[in-house]
């Protein structure tokens, strides 16, 4: 039977970022997908190498607007790994508070968009209205709704005033009833059950084989979370539960995200109440030569940063791996065999973020030679040699 190709994008109403999908369909069923990205590539790794370690934090923050805490967090941890220092206790608490606030707003944002994709605009409006409250909290704590600029290698840039804390806790408490209502509206709704249960199932084996990260893997029964496995910040001191479900379908991914928001509220409140006194910054002056890695759990999964220093004030190499880079390939495993109308929500279920993903990657194409810097220098030297011989 003849197959039809449906092009989606790069500018389409589905997602706010440009990306290009081709769905190969056989009747109603999707048989193959392909994705082309590159519409968001801004050369951030190279830009980061042009700037000093302190300035880099601001560029790294703008990798992605939603994960504007996760990336600087991983980057500063990588730089601290080079030096081999631990940040002061108070800085750790502040970092955790900001990271968890971001997780709540990211999960609410996802919930709203997922509701919108399913034609459930009420959930979209509720979730985004609730998200505003969290953004207010972030504005009180950091001074901005997004792009908090709280992180620097060796600590945090801005202290949390003790006078702000009671108001913030009151505000966080006030969103719990609405979030509970939203949770019930999503988890107990028969229409959403029919629409999302058993759709886009990612099996446990596939989740492991594709190295899926974050809520995508936790919904498939892979209990993996950087916050538990290799604790950073103050996650080892707070009591919180890792949310793991077994089915791996769209519904389970939604459940994981909603319940994680509650856990984040718990962690945030604990940190605000137990905030210790002390320094917030180590005032790092020099960064020795060496290499360091930093990995943390972003709302979408593990963010990994690698930084190499040669003793100057700029990083020599900075590598970023965002969670969507690993999660996007699982789309192929989940969407094939489903209908076109379910393709959108299955894609949305991995919470893709293309801004995070669009780093430079080199693919080896068979038969074509890829030149690196040394090869080019060698070619240039050979040409000079040829010219010199010709002149003789």
């Amino acid at each position, binding site marked *: 039977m003849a197959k039809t190709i449906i092009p989606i994008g790069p*500018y389409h109403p589905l997602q706010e*970022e440009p990306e290009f999908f081709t769905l190969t369909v056989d009747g109603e069923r999707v048989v193959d997908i392909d994705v082309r990205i*590159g*519409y*968001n590539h*801004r050369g951030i790794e190279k830009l980061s190498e042009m700037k000093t370690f302190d300035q880099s934090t601001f560029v790294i923050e703008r990798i*992605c*607007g939603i994960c504007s805490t996760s990336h600087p967090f991983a980057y500063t941890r990588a730089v601290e790994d080079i030096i081999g220092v631990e940040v002061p206790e108070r800085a750790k608490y502040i970092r955790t508070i900001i990271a968890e606030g971001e997780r709540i707003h990211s999960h609410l944002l996802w919930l*709203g968009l997922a509701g919108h994709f399913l034609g459930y605009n009420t959930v979209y409006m509720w979730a985004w209205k609730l998200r505003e409250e969290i953004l207010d909290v972030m504005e009180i704590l950091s001074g901005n709704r997004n792009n908090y600029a709280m992180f620097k290698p060796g600590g945090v840039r801005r202290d949390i005033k003790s006078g702000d804390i009671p108001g913030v806790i009151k505000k966080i408490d006030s969103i719990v009833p609405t979030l509970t209502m939203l949770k019930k509206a999503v988890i107990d709704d028969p229409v959403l059950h029919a629409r999302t249960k058993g759709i886009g199932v990612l099996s446990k084996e596939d989740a492991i084989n594709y190295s899926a990260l974050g809520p995508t893997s936790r919904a498939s029964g892979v209990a993996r979370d950087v916050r538990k496995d290799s604790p950073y910040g103050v996650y080892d001191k707070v009591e919180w539960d890792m949310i793991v479900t077994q089915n791996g379908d769209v519904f389970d991914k939604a459940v994981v995200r909603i319940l994680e928001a509650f856990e984040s509220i718990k962690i945030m409140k604990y940190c605000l109440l137990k905030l210790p006194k002390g320094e917030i910054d180590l005032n790092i002056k020099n960064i020795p030569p060496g290499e360091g890695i930093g990995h943390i759990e972003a709302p979408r999964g593990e963010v990994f940063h690698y930084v190499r220093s040669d003793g100057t004030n700029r990083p020599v190499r900075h590598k970023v791996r965002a969670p969507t880079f690993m999660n996007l390939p699982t789309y192929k495993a989940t969407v094939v065999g489903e209908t076109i109308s379910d393709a959108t929500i299955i894609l949305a279920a991995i919470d893709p973020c293309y801004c995070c993903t669009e780093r430079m990657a080199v693919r080896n194409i068979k038969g074509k030679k890829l030149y690196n810097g040394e090869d080019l220098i060698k070619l240039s030297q050979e040409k000079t040699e040829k010219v010199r011989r010709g002149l003789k």
Partner: protein
Amino acid sequence: MGVKLKALLKSPWVFHLSTGSCNNCDIEILDCLTPRFDIERFGMLLAGSIKHADVLLVTGSGNRKSMERVKRLYEQVPKPCLVVAIGECSLSRGMFIHSYNCPVPVDKVIPVDVYIPGCPPKPEAIIAGVVKLIGKVGGK
């Protein structure tokens, strides 16, 4: 003011174009549509297709690959149309001015009517910008 432009200002439908942004401006635009800010009160709706759009909201730093598409999309918009550049990136490329993949700012490629600075601009600023645009075009 032509009758076409007058009709356009009654209920401007917006289309959102991201030319390689960090998502923040795009999310603040969506925020404008949700209950706290709710620009639907003024008849503004997010259009699904560029062919239904009256106002283009452009964000992002003008990525090489996406600017080709933006040029083609601008040719497809029914004229007259108004263009609003949102965020520092689309104004001057901001932090990405030295990037190898962001050669020119947006206004070198398509004509821009209103610039809204900020990284990201707050929803209030976006609403104020759009209102100013309507006032300017309407001759108020």
